[in-house]
Structure formats: structure tokens, C-alpha cells
């Protein structure tokens, strides 16, 4: 994913707090994906309005980590969601 691209959750894919298991999940068509703290932190920044570059900058500042590492993690995680059609990416 390029820094000037905009990731967004498409219709039918949403974050959901599972109050029974006390975890965050990503609900998608006929799928539920358990999110760890990292996954939840990344998706909480995905709003369709901010670019991949802005998101990774913000996450790096937030958790005080090298931005290259954040980019690598986000690319892997969001890329996997994109391959499953759980994430749209627009230029």
C-alpha cells in the first residue's frame, strides 16, 4: 500500500466489541476476525478520510515506535484484509 492511498472498511465490514468474550472483532460477511491490540489500534485509525501515510505517522507517534516498523506491520495486516475483501483502498 502506498502512503498516499486511502484505506477504508467497505459496507458490511465493521469493528465490534464482543462484550461476552471481552475482545474486539472485525465483523465481515459470514466471518468474524478476532483482533489483538495491534490490529484494533490500526483499524481504529482507518476511517476512509486519512491516507495510509497519515495513519502510520500517527500510530508511530502514538506508541513511540519507528515509522518504518509501523509501515511494515500495517502493510502486512491491511494487505491481508484487502486480499479477503475486508478492506477497500482508493487512490
Amino acid at each position, binding site marked *: 500500500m502506498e502512503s498516499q492511498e486511502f484505506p477504508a472498511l467497505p*459496507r458490511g465490514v465493521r469493528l*465490534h466489541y*464482543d462484550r461476552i*468474550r471481552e475482545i474486539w472483532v472485525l*465483523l465481515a*460477511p*459470514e466471518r468474524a476476525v478476532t483482533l489483538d491490540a495491534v490490529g484494533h489500534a490500526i483499524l481504529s485509525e482507518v476511517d476512509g478520510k486519512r491516507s495510509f501515510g497519515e495513519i502510520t505517522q500517527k500510530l508511530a507517534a502514538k506508541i513511540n515506535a519507528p515509522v518504518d516498523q509501523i509501515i511494515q506491520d500495517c502493510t502486512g495486516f491491511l494487505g491481508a484484509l484487502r486480499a479477503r475483501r475486508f478492506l477497500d483502498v482508493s487512490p
Partner: protein
Amino acid sequence: MTTAPPPIAMLAELTHRCPLSCPYCSNPVEMALQETELPTETWVRVFQEAADLGILQLHLSGGEPASSRDLTDLVAAAQKAGLYTNLITSGIGLSAKRLRVLDAVGLDHIQLSLQGTDAAMADKIGGHRGGYDRKMMVADWIAKIGFPLTLNAVLHRSNLHQLPDMLKMAQNMGARRIEVATVQFHGWALKNRDALMPTQEQAKETTRIVTEARTRLKGQLVIDYVPADYHSNFPKRCMGGWGSTGLNVTPDGQVLPCHAAQTIPHLTFDRVQDRPLADI
């Protein structure tokens, strides 16, 4: 004592009535009669109980769920309970207006069945003349509204050769997913096994097409694949393990571990009219 983890999905068979009569129908051979179908208020209670139990995904199925007059109320109730709501339909019984109302009450996703890629095949399998043309109209309305769509193609000896066209059709309809489900032999399909059983060549060719298409369509169309029964070296897990992650409620209120459980003789099942879901 160990406790099973709470299920994440519930299949609600609202009715066993359906305008189609596919020879592999997943409903039991002894279908529940309309007079025994649960009233709306019972479903509403069960949806809330399911959510309280940890169910995340609700699949509204049948029969044809669009044959239920209270479908809209049930979707609204499921949304109120916080459930991700999926409609599993042939499309028959849905109008543009009804789809807009379902959109307004918050339906999350639609799974549309596909019996074949042309009217001659589809209507022969479904036994409902005009069904294919109607389904194509419904697919168009679904796309216009923007519902996320999965196509569910059940494949067997007569229509396996149409798989490449089915993949194209899914893309043309804007579907994100397609389920390529080779017929599984339970209930009705078992009775019609001789006519439905794919040849070994067909089973192999299907796996080849799916493998190739998964690479070619990566990021565009997700392909879920149920390989042919009887053609692997070892038997699969019971229903591929559905019993451990989901549960099924029949039109007359019986709670099953999966939709084929009634084919096992001598088992009896609790009913939601008699006990809360959490106790079952």
C-alpha cells in the same frame, strides 16, 4: 467438566417453505409445516438470547426466508440485538421495494444462491420456471442498493461445467465472495445421490479451476471452496466442524448443532419455546 466455547453463528431457518425444489435441499426430508412455524415474538426473543450468549453472526435462512412475511421485522430485531445479519436467499420473493426496506432496517449482507448460469439449467435444477430471470433482476437491485453480496453456487454433475461462467457472473454482479460448494450428501442430496454425484474427473477439474481462479482473482473475488464428497482419501469432520462454532434453529423451534443433525436417527432436540437458548 469442560465447557464448550460459546458459538459465534446461528442459522435461523425461518420457514421450510420455498418456491424452488432443488434436489440437494439442505432442509430435512420431513419438513416443518407452516402451522408449526415460530411466531415473530419468539424469534425476537431468541435473537436477543443468542446475542447475550455470544453469537455474533445471524444467518436468516429457510426454505426461502423471503417467504416469511415478518422478514423485515426479524431483521430489525436482529439489528437491535446487535447481530451481524445475513440473508441467505434464492432471491425469489424479493422485490426492489422490499430490498430497500431491508436496507433501511440494517440488513448487513446477502448470500444469493445460484443453480446455473442460464435459465435452462437454473430453472431445471430449481424446478421454478422464470426463477433465473427473476434472480438476475434481484441481483441487479442488490448491486444498486450496494449490499455486500456473496454468490452461493451449489455444484453437481449436471452443472459443474458452468463453474468458469459462475466465476465471471460473480464478478459482473459485483460480488465480493463466491462459495463454490460441491453438493454434500445429506438428506435430500443423499436420496438423489446417483443423479448428483460428480465424476472423479469433474472433482479434480473443479479443484484445478478453483486453485487457478484464487490466484488470478486475488483481491477481487474471494472463493470459498467445498470439495466433492467421497473423492478424498479420508472422511471429513462432521459438517466440516460446524457443530463446534454454530447452532441452528428450525422453523418449529428445535435447536440443532447443524442443519443436518436431524438425519441422525433417535436424537431428540430441545425447543426454544420450552427453554431459553442459554439452557439449551
